[in-house]
């Protein structure tokens, strides 16, 4: 019991509750003191409560302790291993500075959040099986789809963080990330953020979708501001995570590892991190503006002027401004989600084809190219928003140009597969599945990026189909490929191959049915974010098929998790390098010891020269030889 209350996680939760109550009490007290109606549940009270609750969690969990000590001049040396007198497992429930622990924390919390977001989808899919409203009110339905959106996005960001934090330091032979405390901070701040998003569902919900467009988001229920705040806090995690990764890659590589000799996943992580570091600020700003517009009546997005503003001859606010600020992040966010996944595909294909990666430099630069172009395409989400007409064409062309670096990746994958000695264990199946699904997403994208066709496809299920294809092809399938591929490295045990293949085939077939169904329903005129539809639209059978497929995907994922849990506890011990990979992390024992590399790493060859006799990528420098 004492151990339980010493866990950082438990203390963080207590801190969040206390902080929230404190914030709400302060605002309510202040309102009473200034003669406003001292309403306990007023919106500013919830906003300040949410903010102080997040701070309370971070103080409680202990993510700020070391920095607070530095501020008063106390040095805190790096701590390795479990806290004194505590069992090893407690590390995963407390602030731990090892990137391997943080990577697992990110991944596991990400899977929890993913399950919750998926569960929401299985709820509202049932409602869509027949016309009319059967199980939910329209408000509940709107809250479900909105929460599904933002919760899945936070789950994907957590999964991306998990892969990057665990893998990148190992792949570049670094002892840890450049800023271990910032790394722990970046993970833990996700927990209060997830809780804020979940709370938002139960205090009235919100009906704006995850895009939070004003003026609707200015009028929606109390869940709205908590959702903005949760989104904002997730953004903080993205920014510090991206910053940490960039510094790690630029300064912590061994001298012998030039940029073009890094494992290709590290390039993908670089592209993702640039976007996270820079673009996230804009959506944070947009969310803050929504909060202050609701709480303080600041007219950023309201086109109507009050009397005082008219007396000043002030120009009005503009809701389209929000869309610019929002999409400046939220389009690049798509590349934040998919670049690491595409990096996983490039990383795994040569291993299972036993051939060099085709066009390493082109793939590496295509990740950076996608990241750069990602900043220039945001307004393709706004072709029907009423923005100036002259903006449409440049954004259409910029969007279509994205197909070039993406195409480079596809043809490189084909070139890698061509003539390879292919084997098909579960990770390879997930990689091939990812390519097929991402290709579908790549083909349904251009019609939505072309103005003439987008005017008809905008806000239909076509778009829903398109982005689920890119997220499944760019994140979900590669994520599970990575889970199976590195499972023996993380746990030191073998997963069950049969269950893994069952997971794959169920998920792939379920996904194709779901996705083609969504595309088809969209072409027939089914609008997105709508709880009900006219039976005359002729989409009911499609909706039933999509719902069944969604349940198949859910079942597949549960099978996968069962496989991971059971195998991690009791399966056969895995060999050190079952895939015969050349990457540094496979040259050290599994599970990886506390100090990953006993001796420094030296790069002596190209990373992906699979099948070339006598070629070596990395060598461990014998102790005492270098330094």
């Amino acid at each position: 019991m004492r151990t339980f209350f010493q866990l950082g996680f438990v203390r963080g939760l207590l801190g969040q509750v206390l902080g929230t109550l404190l914030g709400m009490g302060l605002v309510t007290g202040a309102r009473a003191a200034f003669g406003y109606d001292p309403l306990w549940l007023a919106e500013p009270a919830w906003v300040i409560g949410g903010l102080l609750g997040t701070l309370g969690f971070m103080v409680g969990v202990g993510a700020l302790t070391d920095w607070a000590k530095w501020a008063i001049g106390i040095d805190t040396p790096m701590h390795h291993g479990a806290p004194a007198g505590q069992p090893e497992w407690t590390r995963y429930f407390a602030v731990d500075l090892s990137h391997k622990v943080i990577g697992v924390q990110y991944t596991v919390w990400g899977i929890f959040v993913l399950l919750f977001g998926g569960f929401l989808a299985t709820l509202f899919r049932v409602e869509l099986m027949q016309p009319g409203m059967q199980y939910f009110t329209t408000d509940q339905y709107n809250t479900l789809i909105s929460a599904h959106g933002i919760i899945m996005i936070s789950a994907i960001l957590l999964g991306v963080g998990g892969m990057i934090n665990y893998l990148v330091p190992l792949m570049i032979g670094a002892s840890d990330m450049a800023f271990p405390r910032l790394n722990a901070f970046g993970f833990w701040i996700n927990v209060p953020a997830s809780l804020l998003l979940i709370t938002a569902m139960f205090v009235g919900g919100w009906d704006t979708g995850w895009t939070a467009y004003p003026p609707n988001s200015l009028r929606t229920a109390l869940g709205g501001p908590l959702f903005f705040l949760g989104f904002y806090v997730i953004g903080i995690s993205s920014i510090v995570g991206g910053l940490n990764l960039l510094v790690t890659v630029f300064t912590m590589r061994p001298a012998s590892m030039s940029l073009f000799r890094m494992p290709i996943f590290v390039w993908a992580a670089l592209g993702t991190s640039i976007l996270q570091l820079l673009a996230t600020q804009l959506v944070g700003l947009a969310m803050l503006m929504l909060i202050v517009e609701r709480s303080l009546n600041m007219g950023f997005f309201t086109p109507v002027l009050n009397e005082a503003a008219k007396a000043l001859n002030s120009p009005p606010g503009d809701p389209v401004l929000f869309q610019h600020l929002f999409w400046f992040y939220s389009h690049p966010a798509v590349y934040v989600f998919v670049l690491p996944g595409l990096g996983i595909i490039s990383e795994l294909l040569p291993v299972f084809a036993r051939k060099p990666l085709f066009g390493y430099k082109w793939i590496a630069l295509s990740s950076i190219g996608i990241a750069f172009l990602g900043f220039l395409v945001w307004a393709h989400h706004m072709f029907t928003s009423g923005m100036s007409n002259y903006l449409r064409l440049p954004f259409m062309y910029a969007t279509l140009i994205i197909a070039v670096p993406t195409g480079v990746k596809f043809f490189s994958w084909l070139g890698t597969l061509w003539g390879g000695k292919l084997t098909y264990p579960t990770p390879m199946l997930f990689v091939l599945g990812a390519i097929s699904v991402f290709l579908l997403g790549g083909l349904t994208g251009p019609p939505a990026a072309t103005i003439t066709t987008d005017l008809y496809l905008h806000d239909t299920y076509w778009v829903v189909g398109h982005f689920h294809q890119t997220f499944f092809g760019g994140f979900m399938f590669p994520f599970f490929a990575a889970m199976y591929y590195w499972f023996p490295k993380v746990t030191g045990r073998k997963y069950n191959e049969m269950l893994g293949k069952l997971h794959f085939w169920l998920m792939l077939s379920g996904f194709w049915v779901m996705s083609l169904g969504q595309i088809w329903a969209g072409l027939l005129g089914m609008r997105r974010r709508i709880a009900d539809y006219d039976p005359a639209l002729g989409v009911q059978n499609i909706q039933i098929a999509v719902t069944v497929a969604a349940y198949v995907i859910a079942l597949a994922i549960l099978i996968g998790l069962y496989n991971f849990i059971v195998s991690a506890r009791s399966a056969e011990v895995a060999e050190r390098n079952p895939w015969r990979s050349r990457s540094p992390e496979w040259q050290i024992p599994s599970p990886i010891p506390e100090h990953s590399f006993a001796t420094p790493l030296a790069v002596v060859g190209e990373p992906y020269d699979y099948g070339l006799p006598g070629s070596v990528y990395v060598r461990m420098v014998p102790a005492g030889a270098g330094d």
Partner: protein
Amino acid sequence: MSGATAAQGEYRVALRNNRLGLWLFFLSESFLFAGLLVTRFYLWGNTRPELNQLNGLLVTVVLLLSSFTMNRAETALVQNDRKTFLNSLLITAALGLLFLAGVMVFEWGGHIRPSDGAYGAVLFGMTGMHALHVVSGIVFILIVWNNGRRGLYSSEQHWGVEACAIWWHYVDLVWVFFYPALYLMGQAIR
């Protein structure tokens, strides 16, 4: 390798990481402030509200002066002049407070309220976000002053002071862009 040189090597590595990290953070923050500038030009266009020009000029002069005293503090520490170092930090913090007073008392207390259309929203949004950064800078300066008073910085190893100084200069630089955008550009509308 002796203990002392190993510690120096560690400090050098940490310093390189810290510097790159802080500059990347500046880059990230630039997008935040650029977003606010974009908002100003999107909503205000070629106009601006009538503001207290004398107040705007005075707070700008005060903030620019504070950058000078901040630099004086850092160079004094490098030359082992502890007294000037600590005094200059305090003067910088005081000038920062003066700037805040100018913005929050005189500008925010003027005839424009936050709820007054795009003029109120952008004026309070930009000055508010910048004031938040000035407050963080003042807190940072006081922490550094306290640690400096206890002799935790040497003329060679003082990353805390360096970070505080460039943070303060950065916040100052942001105002160099915000001041003309709010006070000088466009036609004043009565």
